């Protein structure tokens, strides 16, 4: 008796239909010719993609989101990877406590992190600024980078590093010439996922974004709150395709299931 069995497979198939339904419907709606959400659409067109190409607020928000996500990714790796290296390779007192401290922000709901950051940033005039958004997103990405890279680095074979060290390499040289090159696939996957995490971060951004500095998810929430036409569906298709491309890269490098393994 191997495999999943017919009854279980049918159940699972049914759930898969439900999981995919909202996404399939959004994709179809993106090509709608109607002025509002009507499903199935009465006709198909590319007009909402054209609208999207001329929509200034969404484009400004998209550009800001890309900037924020890029800076967040670089800074998170710069802060997180050294910490992960120390946690994975070091043997010192308080290591487990520190490891727990580093991932603690992931346990706090972003609703509460967002509120705490709003109260903290307001007197400092950091709300609705690029630095504010970057720091806010880093509360999510830094713990994520540390956790993911600690696992990736701890899984590297120790003996190659030991060999390099016996042959006279300094510890720093071992890290630079052996450890990091071996960890490159993990690093790239980690960078991709932090970019996506930042790009998609909505709740923290809603707290600290303002009319002058609004990220794409914030603009999307405001748009959907105000009106419901297929414009957001067209934007969604663009985002889904981009996300799938990134996920495929990650899957190729490390496997998504392992990368997101909570």
């Amino acid at each position, binding site marked *: *008796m191997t495999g999943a069995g017919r009854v279980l497979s049918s159940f699972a198939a049914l759930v898969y239909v439900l999981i995919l339904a909202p996404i399939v419907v*959004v994709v179809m709606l993106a090509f709608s010719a109607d002025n509002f959400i009507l499903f199935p659409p009465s006709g198909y067109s590319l007009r909402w993609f054209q609208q999207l190409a001329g929509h200034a607020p969404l484009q400004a928000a998209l550009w800001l989101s890309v900037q924020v996500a890029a800076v967040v990714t670089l800074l998170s790796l710069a802060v997180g990877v050294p910490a992960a290296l120390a946690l994975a390779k*070091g043997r010192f007192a308080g290591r487990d406590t520190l490891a727990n401290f580093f991932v603690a922000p992931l346990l706090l709901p972003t609703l509460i992190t967002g509120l705490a950051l*709003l*109260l903290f940033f307001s007197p400092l005039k950091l709300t609705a600024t690029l630095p504010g958004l970057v720091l806010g997103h880093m*509360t999510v990405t830094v713990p994520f980078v540390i956790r993911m890279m600690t696992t990736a680095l701890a899984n590297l074979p120790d003996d190659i590093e030991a060999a390099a060290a016996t042959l006279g390499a300094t510890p720093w040289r071992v890290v630079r010439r052996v450890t990091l090159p071996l960890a490159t696939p993990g690093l790239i996957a980690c960078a991709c996922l932090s970019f996506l995490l930042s790009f*998609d971060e909505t709740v923290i951004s809603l707290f600290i974004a303002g009319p002058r500095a609004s990220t794409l998810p914030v603009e999307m*929430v405001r748009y959907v709150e105000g009106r419901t036409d297929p414009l957001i569906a067209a934007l969604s298709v663009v985002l889904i395709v981009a996300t799938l491309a990134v996920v495929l890269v990650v*899957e190729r490098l490390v496997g998504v299931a392992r990368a997101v393994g909570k």
Partner: protein
Amino acid sequence: MTVSRRLPLLLIPATLFLLVIYVWPSLGLFRNAFNEVGPTGAMVEAWSLATWRATFHDSFTFELTLNSLWLSSVSTLIALCMAYPVSLFLFRTDSRFRGLLAVVAIMPMLVSGVVRVFGWLAILGDRGLVNTTLQSLGLISTPLKLVFNWTGVTIGLAESIMPYMILALLAGFGRLDRTLEEAARSLGASPFRTFRRVTLPLSLPAIALAAGLGFVLSMSAYITPKLLGGGRVFVLATEIFEQATTNTNWPVAAVLAIYTLVLLLALLVVSNLVARRLQR
């Protein structure tokens, strides 16, 4: 020897960063809960319990709590009924598409929350998939109200927490031993009986953990109740956001946030206790 004595120095940037941008703001949130709101609506620095007293004398807080708990319970239950078969399927399948199927199962996690809300509007809206289908079949004459109310929020929430629960279930299925099921089957138990008497009991700890996670996630979800609720669904999360941004009543927002956090911690402790007890 790769272990250097200077290795712990690499922890300094991350530690400093989290102290300044996570620990300090969290303490600030706590501090704000003891401030007061003056007659002008501006916040007054104080060490008082006035905001706490006002918040918990308000029957609306009680209503929000019940709303949140009820919404989270129903969403978690629905999500569990969907996540369980998928996880069990992924755990057992020897399909060569297993990796791909796993990715599809956690797809909602990878797609922006706003996008999924939009998909549900197109499925459940007045002129959406469900209503147009039912109307063209002649089963209903006026569209069913499926969004901008609790129904829509519950469905959307169940879908959004499901991928996390699938991952939690998969991680907890370690104790499921195929040979025990085969033994039950060879001793004459029907497939349903085998499931009820062997598979289900063995997976109860995983279920408790996944349910705890789903519950916590739905209690703190904001986007789905906000957008699929259409301003008619009030839970703790939406109220915290309203108080903080629209009303700029920070002390009340802080009190509600701490209150929600305490509720979540209590729930996590309970679900972990239940999971541990079931493991024995």
